[in-house]
């Protein structure tokens, strides 16, 4: 039996490998391939500029841009593509920005994480606290009211919050900036104007992320209610253990396990939703780059962003997986966990 941690790391490596293979397949194997479209695109641009256009030269340029060699046999081109990405971090060159994809996207990684991490952690924490309160007051008016609120929250798409926030608080009332990620008049560093600008620009996107992540509350409520009915909790009460300790160490710790696995799955949709949120707020991080890559038909940038998103997601899930052992020590001893 391979250990839990080794299997998780292996899984992460497999997903990364598959996503890069997918990117290669899109360039090389798709009918009516992006390379063809890029060739037409460059040809048109070249003709617009009025220079003499040599088809051979442009075709060679397409190969440089994508990093995929179309003249070599499939397996060699594939091997070289993998080598370029994993060893030299060469993702090709952006057509739209006319610069290498990797540094362009790498600069945006901290912004993407900054924007997503608060939504995930704060949103889930609020959800769990609400769930605990609902479970504690099970059956009361407070419980049913909050349950209805949670269902409403799940029913309204998160980007509606973004649109309404932008229109009301951004454009109409002018409380928050409506685009960008920092105040251009400030100097980056540990000074108040810069940080204030940062917070003002990030407030609406992060609020949207928090609203989008509230959902775990109902599941936690159900788990807590179930756990509270079990005999060992009764015994704990009989032993005279304080209520607070029972709530946190006994009920809470057991009820949070399924929610924690749920969070892992949430990570996969987290960066996906950032494409929509960043486009609405014109917040230049990876999601916005993805959107522009698509609009500009910039395939190297698009595939680079896809691989970046997958990498971030895989790392996030790996982190959650590796810390899972802390809240559930059974994973080390009890063989494999049955569900994800």
């Amino acid at each position, binding site marked *: 039996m391979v250990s839990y941690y080794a299997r998780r790391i292996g899984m992460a490596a497999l997903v990364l490998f598959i996503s890069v293979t997918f990117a290669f397949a899109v360039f090389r194997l798709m009918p009516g391939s992006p390379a063809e479209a890029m060739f037409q695109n460059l040809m048109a641009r070249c003709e617009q500029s009025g220079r003499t256009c040599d088809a051979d030269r442009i075709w060679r340029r397409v190969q440089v841009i994508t990093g995929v060699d179309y003249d070599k046999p499939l397996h060699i081109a594939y091997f070289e593509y993998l080598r370029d990405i994993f060893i030299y971090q060469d993702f090709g060159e952006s057509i739209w920005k006319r610069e290498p994809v990797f540094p362009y996207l790498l600069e945006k990684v901290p912004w993407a994480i900054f924007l997503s991490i608060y939504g995930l952690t704060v949103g889930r924490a609020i959800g769990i606290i609400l769930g605990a309160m609902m479970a504690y007051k099970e059956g009361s008016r407070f419980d049913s009211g909050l349950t209805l609120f949670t269902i409403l929250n799940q*029913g309204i798409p998160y980007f509606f919050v973004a649109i309404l926030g932008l229109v009301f608080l951004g454009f109409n009332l002018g409380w928050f900036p409506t685009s960008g990620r920092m105040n251009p008049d400030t100097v980056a560093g540990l000074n108040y104007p810069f940080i204030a600008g940062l917070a003002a620009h990030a407030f609406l996107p992060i609020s949207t992320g928090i609203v989008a992540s509230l959902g775990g509350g109902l599941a936690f409520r159900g788990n807590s209610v179930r756990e509270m009915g079990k005999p060992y909790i009764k015994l704990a009460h009989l032993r005279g253990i304080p209520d607070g300790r029972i709530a946190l160490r006994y009920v809470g710790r057991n009820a949070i396990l399924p929610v924690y696995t749920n969070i892992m799955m949430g990570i996969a949709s987290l960066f996906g939703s950032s494409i929509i949120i960043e486009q609405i707020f014109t917040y230049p991080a990876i999601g916005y780059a993805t959107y522009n890559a698509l609009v500009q038909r910039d395939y190297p940038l698009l595939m680079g962003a896809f691989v970046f998103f997958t990498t971030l997601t895989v790392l996030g899930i790996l982190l959650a997986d590796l810390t899972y052992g802390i809240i559930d020590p059974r994973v080390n001893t009890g063989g494999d966990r049955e569900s994800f």
Partner: protein
Amino acid sequence: MSPSESDRSPRSDGGDITGGEDLFTQRAADSVEESYAVLLRRWARSFIYAPIMAAWDDWRTRVGGLILLFYISLPTLGVWITPAPQPFRHGLNMAPFQEGWFTWTTANVFGLSIPWFEISAALGSNSTGQSMEALLIYGSVPIFQMIISGAVFAAFLGTFIGVFAGYKGGRIDGVLMTITDVVLTVPGTALIVVLAAVWRPENAWVVGIILGIDNWPGLARTVRSQVLSFREESVVEAHRALGLSTRTILRRDMISPLMPYISINFAGGARGIIFESVGLYFIGILPYTNENWGVILNSSYDNISVTNPNTFYYLFEPMLIISGLTFGLILFAQGLDQVFNVRLQARHEAQDQDKEEGAQAIDT
């Protein structure tokens, strides 16, 4: 039940049931000729009447079901009684419920004239003079096409992979679950964006299937873990010993008890598809080939004047329509969970008992 082809072959225990099999396998029902009407009535009772009555008991399924019924009437009935949205049919930028939005008329049905009504731009009109209600009603058609194709695709794939992996076990299980985990880990929206960029899907049915791609792994996981417990039950053992084919066992003993899970997941998948399609059409990642709710929301967003809150109804109307449908789906799914989840019900009963017994002990 008549013995199938495989039942006639000699058994490994030496038995041979080719002769005189009727003696043991014939049941009373086999010899009675039943009229189609009786069969139809029985089928209706167990597959239509009983589930509806069970669902009606829970307020969430009741409200959710009524909401869903209303929304299903939009692309079917609504399209039939509302004229298609046309530019300049109404005044430009009319506010909702303006003078003359509702008039009594008469309609001719088979030569009979009955009182009827006519609605004219009740929800206002946009900047090209199309009435908002006609836009929203006709916009529901592609949305429902996407929901149906995407959620059905996800439900089929998830059920098939989950049941097959759980029942077969071993290496097949390992391979299928690895595939499921990979799809679960790959960020779904990013994958959809890439596929949308390469394929430029124009047909709403195709868009639905692409959106359904990241919806099946969750169902496959749930179904598998259920099947793992079902396959140990004695009835499955008995059916296997009787020599029923794998397909029959899967259909009878695995998939029918899983129907509640599958339908709950169907509702959840439909919600996900609405979110993603509206979101991606709104920001303009999917090509505008039909006037669905996401496209309407996008043009409404461009149409409003941010300094004049009176124009915000453009934004609120599509938002309310979209949220209403997802709200109905969630209510319905949660109610179904309550109605069908035997474990949850049993637990609730047991807990109530516990409460009565242990009330004094805890109440100190």
